């Protein structure tokens, strides 16, 4: 019976549901009077059930309504962003709308999370029928899907907005002579633009769970196309158009500045090379000292050995009479041997 509650979150059919239940209960009540306590408890719990479920449905319907309103605002924002006239840029309104939509979506996110918690708590504490739990799960899923769709649309609108702004910038550079001034002070002019765009687009960054990756892609891309963020090399600015005079003046100055930077970096590299050279040479100096010590040791050893050998030679040469004595002893032994054999 409760499963037959419609899945539409707009229309609150709780009243009908309650009436049906009342009528059914009246029909069951006489039969269930046998177990009054259990019935009372069932009644109470069923009433609680009803209240809980009605609360669930209330919140679900509120969320659905809010999602609807948000998507309406989003369509208005999309229309505003689509307007590509160069001079009539409703930046202020677009930014306000963006902020408002972002807040709403974050509020809807939290409300949906609460709803989910409520549903899980309901499913946990009471023995609802399987259909009830399926229904509540389905309702929550539907709401989540719609919120995600809205978020995706929001992200698309932001993408379109940045593209339009880029087109504006290009057109402005082409048409107005003030464009040259803007390009002469690229650091001053375009940085605030990039910072502003980054501020407006990085604000949606923290909360968007499905679109965070693409929003973060938007921000560095916007800064990159500004061509003047300090992260990029200045050599990129040489690629600007050179048919105009003032950019050529800039290019000349910038090329000089770039050449200076190159010279400075080359000098730094040379410095490091020299340092490495000095380190290597000092290490090798140590090795050379070791070699020297080894050679000295060798010299000492060889001299000692030579003196020993010289002494030996002396002893050998001066010991001749001792040797003769030994030989005589040997010959004596030989004689004795011969005598024994023969």
């Amino acid at each position: 019976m409760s499963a037959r509650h419609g899945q539409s979150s707009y229309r609150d059919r709780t009243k009908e549901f309650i009436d049906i239940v009342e009528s059914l209960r009246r029909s069951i009540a006489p039969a269930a009077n046998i177990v009054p306590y259990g019935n009372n408890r069932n009644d109470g719990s069923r009433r609680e059930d009803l209240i809980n479920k009605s609360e669930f449905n209330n919140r679900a319907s509120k969320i659905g309504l809010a999602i609807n309103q948000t998507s309406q605002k989003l369509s208005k924002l999309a229309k505003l962003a689509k307007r590509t006239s160069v001079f009539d840029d409703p930046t202020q309104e677009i930014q306000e709308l963006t902020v408002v939509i972002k807040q709403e979506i974050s509020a809807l996110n939290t409300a949906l999370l609460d709803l989910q918690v409520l549903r899980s708590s309901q499913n946990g504490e009471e023995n609802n029928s399987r259909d009830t739990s399926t229904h509540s799960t389905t309702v929550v899923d539907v709401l989540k899907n719609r919120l995600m769709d809205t978020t995706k649309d929001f992200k698309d609108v932001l993408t379109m907005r940045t593209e339009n702004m880029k087109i504006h910038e290009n057109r402005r550079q082409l048409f107005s002579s003030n464009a040259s001034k803007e390009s002469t002070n690229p650091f001053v002019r375009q940085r605030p633009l990039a910072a502003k765009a980054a501020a407006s687009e990085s604000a949606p960054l923290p909360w968007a769970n499905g679109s965070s990756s693409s929003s973060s892609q938007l921000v560095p891309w916007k800064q990159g196309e500004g061509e003047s963020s300090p992260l990029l090399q200045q050599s990129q600015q040489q690629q600007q158009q050179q048919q105009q005079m003032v950019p050529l003046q800039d290019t000349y100055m910038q090329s000089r500045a770039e050449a200076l930077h190159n010279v400075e970096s080359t000098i730094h590299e040379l410095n490091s090379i020299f340092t490495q050279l000095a380190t290597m040479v000092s290490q090798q100096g140590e090795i050379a000292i070791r070699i020297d010590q080894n050679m000295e040791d060798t010299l000492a050893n060889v001299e000692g050995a030579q003196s020993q050998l010289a002494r030996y030679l002396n002893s050998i040469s001066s010991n001749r009479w001792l040797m003769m004595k030994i030989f005589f002893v040997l010959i004596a032994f030989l004689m004795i041997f011969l005598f024994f054999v023969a």
Partner: protein
Amino acid sequence: MKITALLVLKCAPETSDPVILANASDVSHFGYFQRSSVKEFVVFVGRTVASRTPPSQRQSVQHEEYKVHAYNRNGLCAVGFMDDHYPVRSAFSLLNQVLDEYQKSFGEAWRSAKEDSSQPWPYLTEALNKFQDPAEADKLLKIQRELDETKIILHKTIDSVLARGEKLDSLVEKSSDLSMASQMFYKQAKKTNSCCTIL
């Protein structure tokens, strides 16, 4: 990397044709019969570009196979005809130098010039010859080039130092082996010397 001509003109503010104050051109690589027409061409294009260059502006125009660089400084304009390989920055620093030199040597007399002066200015001709190499004109380029050469030399030095290190290592090995061997030799000699009493 070739400069074909250098011109100094006085640019009247957009009313009349610019007046040529000095002219130096190097037409040696053209055939003999083309030289005069090339000179005319240089004069004409130089006048046109100079008249179209607003004051305090630099401009580079591509004309057939030449790049024409013009720098207009308060009515005194320097124009240079270079080929495509000549770096733009060096070209403009060269024009700067030419203008400085001209103002130093001629002062303000040029402002009253009404017709093309035909006397050659030796500085310009020798500048034309000297600055065929863009490094001469642009100090930055020269410094960069020298730094690059130094870096190459240093790389070679480091390579040779590494080789020296290897040789030193092998020397260390050999010398330590030698000292070991000599030590063994010494011990052996001492041993033979100690127990020789019987023999």
